[in-house]
């Protein structure tokens, strides 16, 4: 899921002030931002209270089921058409994808209420860690299911680097070195000798902006 954190409040109020907005419509997200406790119903209502305390009028609020889904968000916006029309701006408590979807679905100025930080694994309730960078050139087959590109702070394919000490990472000293973990797991699985020098990564797979269209060629080119 996409991990978000609250955006610095003064940046939000500066954004609203930049268009002299007094009335605000709030949009949360029922997916990631709800799990991350940044843009669910509870956080939307908290934000509403804070805005009202600061003198803004909150014309209405909604928590889209999946805010990054264009069709669903358009439907949600239509349901709240009058409240949105009464507002000067829409503040979105969702990831950047959700903010852009809302911006496409409504005609009012839209501002981000959160910062989008990473694709996170839910380790347990409220604990999220970045394990995948969606690089499009997966090496997990070679690295025992541990991604060095993401979990090594330097993203080295071949490691450990010269800073590893007692199996610990140089940059994040409370963590085990990703390359030590990889080597150990390979050994435990009897694959010790399988990791040679990994060649430089193909970063062209990560060229922006990414797009997939399963309707292209009528979805017929998937193996």
């Amino acid at each position, binding site marked *: 899921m996409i991990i978000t954190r609250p955006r610095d409040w003064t940046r939000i109020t500066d954004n609203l002030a930049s268009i002299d907005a007094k009335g605000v419509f709030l949009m949360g997200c029922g997916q990631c931002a709800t799990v991350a406790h940044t843009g669910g119903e509870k956080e939307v209502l908290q934000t509403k209270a804070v805005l009202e305390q600061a003198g803004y009028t909150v014309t209405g609020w909604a928590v889209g089921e999946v805010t990054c889904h264009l069709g669903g968000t358009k439907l949600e916006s239509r349901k709240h058409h009058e409240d949105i029309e009464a507002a000067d701006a829409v503040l979105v408590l969702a990831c950047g994808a959700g903010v852009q979807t809302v911006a496409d679905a409504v005609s009012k100025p839209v501002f981000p209420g959160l910062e989008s930080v990473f694709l996170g694994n839910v380790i347990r309730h409220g604990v999220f860690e970045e394990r995948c960078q969606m690089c499009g050139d997966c090496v997990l087959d070679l690295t025992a299911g541990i991604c060095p590109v993401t979990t090594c702070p*330097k993203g*080295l394919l*071949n*490691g450990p680097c*010269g800073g590893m000490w007692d199996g610990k990472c140089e*940059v994040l000293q409370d963590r085990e070195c990703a*390359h*030590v973990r990889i080597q150990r797991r390979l050994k435990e699985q009897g694959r010790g000798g399988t990791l040679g020098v990994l060649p430089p990564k193909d970063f062209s797979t990560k060229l922006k902006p990414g797009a997939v269209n399963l309707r292209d060629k009528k979805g017929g080119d998937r193996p």
Partner: protein
Amino acid sequence: MSRFREALECGEFVVTSEVAPPLGTDLSAMRRAVETIGPHCHALNVTDNQGATLHLSSLAASRVVLEMGYEPIFQQTCRDRNRLALQSDLLAAWTLGLRNLLAVTGDDPRSGDHPHAKGVFDLDSTQLATIAAGMNGGHDMLGRELDGATDFFIGGAMFPEAEPWDIQLVRAQRKVEAGMRFFQTQAIFDMAKLERAVEALRPMGVKVIAGVLLLRSPRVIDFINRRLAGLMVPEHIADRIRGADDVAEESIALATEQVREIRQIADGVHIMSLGLDSAVGRILETKDS
């Protein structure tokens, strides 16, 4: 042909040390350091934005060392440049007369003076060495023929004291396979671990130059133990330095003992003087010091 390479390949015990380019354009302090330590050394490493802090480039400063009549070891980190820039600088280095290359990963930017910088790490040190070895063979990383090849003497870093050793050893092996012919180690405090490393690495045909770090003040010890996870000064050595009447003198005595021991074990020594350049001659016990 690099004199440093010649000496190592002849089995001579080599001495290297390092100089840091300035933060600015005034090279006089670096020149003074080169004049002080250069005469004691086969070659001088020229650091590349060391500690992820901004300095004049290693490429230009290495050329300055060469023009002064000393032999530089051009350090290249993978932190600040992508594969295009690294290859381009390798070609430049060769045309500037730089013959020795030390390929290292580089410290993470968040430990340096530009913590908001993007760490590039497009390549890692092993991949960089592979590419440099390819250029020695006359082609770039895509296999295209170069109009004029290089012939770098390629080295890298290794850390004999860092556990787990089996993982370190495999890593060193891969670096040798990539084309590294010498290792300069991080500071050595445990000679038994250095011996273990040299015994394992020599049969691979790689030379080991052992690092000696001048613990010139208790602050240096604290800095190493706190900031550089990879270098831990053992308690008995820290106590010896902290308890000394004259800390600088004691650190010189300690380094001198370490060099004597290393002469019996490794292929060379790399002195990190941390600015106490005038002591380098004494540490090496060379006649003219």
